[in-house]
C-alpha cells in the first residue's frame, strides 16, 4: 500500500512539473517541429498501448476475456455514434456487467 502512495505522489509531482515546464521554459526550446510532433504523438502511442494491454493482458500473460472485449466493442459503437464520454464509459461497463450477470461471457 505504501508503494501505491509513493506512485501516487511521484505521478502527481511529475505531472505538475510538466505543466509548469511549459509555462517557464523559453519559447525556443520546443520550437523544433520534430520535438513538437513527438509531444503530440506520444499520448496517441501510449493511450493505444494502454487500450491494448488493459484489454488483452493479465500481468505478463496475454488473455482473452469475452465480456471485456464485448464491452470495448460496445464502446467503439458508442464512439462511432458520437456519444459523449460518460455515455461511452457506461455503455462499455454495462455491456460487460450484463454479459457476466447472464453468464454468457
Amino acid at each position, binding site marked *: 500500500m505504501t508503494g*501505491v*502512495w509513493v*506512485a*501516487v*505522489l*511521484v*505521478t*502527481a509531482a*511529475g*505531472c*505538475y512539473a*510538466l*505543466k*509548469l515546464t*511549459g*509555462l*517557464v*521554459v523559453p519559447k525556443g526550446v*520546443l520550437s523544433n517541429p*520534430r520535438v513538437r*510532433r*513527438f*509531444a*503530440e*504523438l*506520444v*499520448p*496517441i*502511442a*501510449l*493511450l*493505444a*498501448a*494502454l*487500450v*491494448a*494491454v*488493459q*484489454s488483452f*493482458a493479465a*500481468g*505478463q500473460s*496475454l488473455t482473452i476475456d469475452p*465480456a*471485456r472485449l464485448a*464491452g*470495448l466493442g460496445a*464502446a467503439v459503437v458508442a*464512439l462511432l455514434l458520437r456519444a459523449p*464520454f460518460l455515455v*461511452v*464509459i457506461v455503455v*462499455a*461497463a*454495462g*455491456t*460487460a*456487467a450484463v454479459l*457476466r*450477470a447472464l453468464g454468457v461471457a
Partner: protein
Amino acid sequence: MRDGIGLGLAVGISGVAFGAAAVGSGMTVAQACVLSLLAFTGASQFALAGAVAGGAGLIGGAAGAILLGSRNALYGLRLADLLPRRGVRRLVAAHGVIDETTAVTLAQPDAAAARRGFLATFVTIYLTWNLTTLLGAFGAGRLGSPQALGIDVVGPAAFLALIWPRLRAGRTERAVGVAGAVIALATTPFLPTGVPVILAATAALAGALISPRPDSPRPDAPQPEVP
C-alpha cells in the same frame, strides 16, 4: 466564459469514472482523491490506476503516467503569454494547464477573454472532477465487486474515448496508435508490467521522425502539375 463552465461541468463529471476505476483497481478512496487533487490530468490518472490493477510495476506505471502528461507542457508553451507571468499566481495557473482549459483559452477572441475562459474552465473542472472522483470512489466500493460491475472495462474504454478524436486527425496518428498497441502487446510477455506501455513511445518517435508536420501533404498524394 460560459463555454468554459459548460465544458468544465460536462468533463468534470467524468471524475465518477476515474473514482470508480481507481477503487476497482485496488487504490483506496484517499489515494484516488489525492491523485485527482494533485495530478489533475485524466489520462495519467487512469494510467496509474491501470498499473495498480496490474499488481506490479508501479515504477513503470508512474513513468508511463507522467509521460502521458507531457502534452500539458506543450499546452503551457502556447498559454504562457496569456497566463500570469510570475509568482504564486503562475504556480497555481500551471496546475490548470490541461486539454480542456487549453481548448477553451485558445478559442477566445482576445487576451482578456482568454484569461477569463481559462479561469472559468479551470475552477469548474477542478471542483467537479474532484467531487465526482470522491463520489465514484465511494460508490464503487459500496456497489459490489468491480468485475461484476464491468469496472475493469472503464479504463480501456476511457482511453479509447480520449484517443478517438486524435485517431481521426490523420494517417500518421492512426499508424502511431496501431504501432503503439502492437509494440506493447508483443513485449508484454517478456518485460515487467508497465514497461511495454513506455516502450510504445518509440512509435511516437518514429512517427515524429517520418512525418514531422501534421498537415504535410502525403508523399503518395498526387502533386499538382506545374503548368
